[in-house]
């Protein structure tokens, strides 16, 4: 039963499987994001308080959601790599970090652009904003710790410990708006009782979240392929792959 799983953890097999997965992830991502942008900019009505200014949530909320989701993915992969000594898991964790850092930066920047006209300030040291900034620094710390070692195994293990330590920040970010009275508003869609957002504003947001998630998975698959190839550079299969692609390029 577990053979397919162990096979997937073998780098050459994963390298091939991931290649065939990429179009199945990136095409839906493009479709969903185009649909979400159309819904968010055309279908969704203007807000009763913010007018058209609220429409930045169609980028801000998916980015913020992914910034946390990717961190959890990274920490899980790092934990699996530590416990089961699966190298592919470490490769996944390492590939997550730059993508997660980009989405964290996107969430912070879009939030600041919205904050200036609506709140009246770009930045306040309040719980939600501060904890999200700490998340960005955790990604930066993870990436620089990885590059601080020459030995790949050492680099994998040390960075995995940091990834696992930082995971406590994720629930802090999520609940910061409920635990402490700050400036950032509370959750609109993750609570189940009375809807805080009307349907025509909600579905483009959910579409964008799904589209961004597909985009992340597609980019992750591409990045892990590169990471695996680099790690296995001296192995037979990697050399075969590199030789066949360079011949193809020479033929052109």
């Amino acid at each position, binding site marked *: 039963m577990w053979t397919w799983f162990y096979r997937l953890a073998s780098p050459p097999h994963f390298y091939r499987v991931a290649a065939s997965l990429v179009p199945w992830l990136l095409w839906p991502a493009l479709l969903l994001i185009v649909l979400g942008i159309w819904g968010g900019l055309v279908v969704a*009505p*203007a*807000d*009763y*308080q*913010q007018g058209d*200014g*609220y429409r930045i*949530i169609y980028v801000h909320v998916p980015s913020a959601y992914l910034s946390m989701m990717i961190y959890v993915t990274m920490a899980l992969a790092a*934990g699996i790599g*530590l*416990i*089961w000594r699966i190298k592919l898991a470490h490769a996944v964790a390492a590939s997550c970090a730059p993508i997660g850092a980009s989405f964290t930066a996107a969430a912070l920047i879009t939030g600041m652009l919205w904050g200036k*006209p*609506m*709140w*009246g*300030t770009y930045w*306040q040291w*309040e*719980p939600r904003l501060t904890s999200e900034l700490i998340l960005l620094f955790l990604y930066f710390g993870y990436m620089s710790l990885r590059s601080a070692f020459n030995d790949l195994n050492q680099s994998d293990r040390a960075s995995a*410990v940091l990834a*696992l*330590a930082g*995971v*406590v920040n994720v629930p*802090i970010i999520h609940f910061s708006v409920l635990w*402490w*009275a*700050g*400036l950032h*508003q*509370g*959750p*609109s869609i993750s609570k189940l009782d009375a809807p*805080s*957002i*009307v349907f*025509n*504003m909600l579905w483009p947001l959910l579409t964008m979240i799904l589209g961004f998630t597909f985009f992340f998975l597609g980019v992750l698959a591409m990045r892990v392929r590169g990471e695996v190839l680099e790690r296995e550079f001296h192995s037979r299969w990697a050399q075969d792959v590199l030789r066949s692609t360079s011949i193809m390029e020479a033929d052109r």
Partner: protein
Amino acid sequence: MTPRRQRMMLVGLFVAGVAVAVGLALRAFQENLLYFYTPTQAIAGEAPDGKKIRLGGMVEKGSLRREPGDLELRFDVTDNEKTMTVAYSGVLPDLFREGQGVIAMGHVDADGVFRAEEVLAKHDENYMPPEVAATMATDGQAPPATPPATDAALN
């Protein structure tokens, strides 16, 4: 115990340990983490004297006023228990409304008036078109805030 189980325990204990440590640290710093004081806290003198603090609450409906020939605005901030008058001269953010949340940075004067140097609007989590807000108001449900009617008073 296999080495793998041992590593699993180690990772589990490590994450739990970090979580407990951070949790205790946050509890210990609870007071320092306080982003703003409510009017009740400010009137009771819980805020440090003479220091700059943030005051947070709702802008009471109909309380926004300006003396003729003066740039200073005054409005009342309430937490539904106590109310404090805020004096401010400056630009208000787009989302500043009567009935909406607000956070003012400044200090409490001897006369009990809060002199604000900066006023920030605190948005709520409701998103809806104006028509829905109007329907909610006529249905007898409290609308989350007054529509931008305060602009007239400001201009």
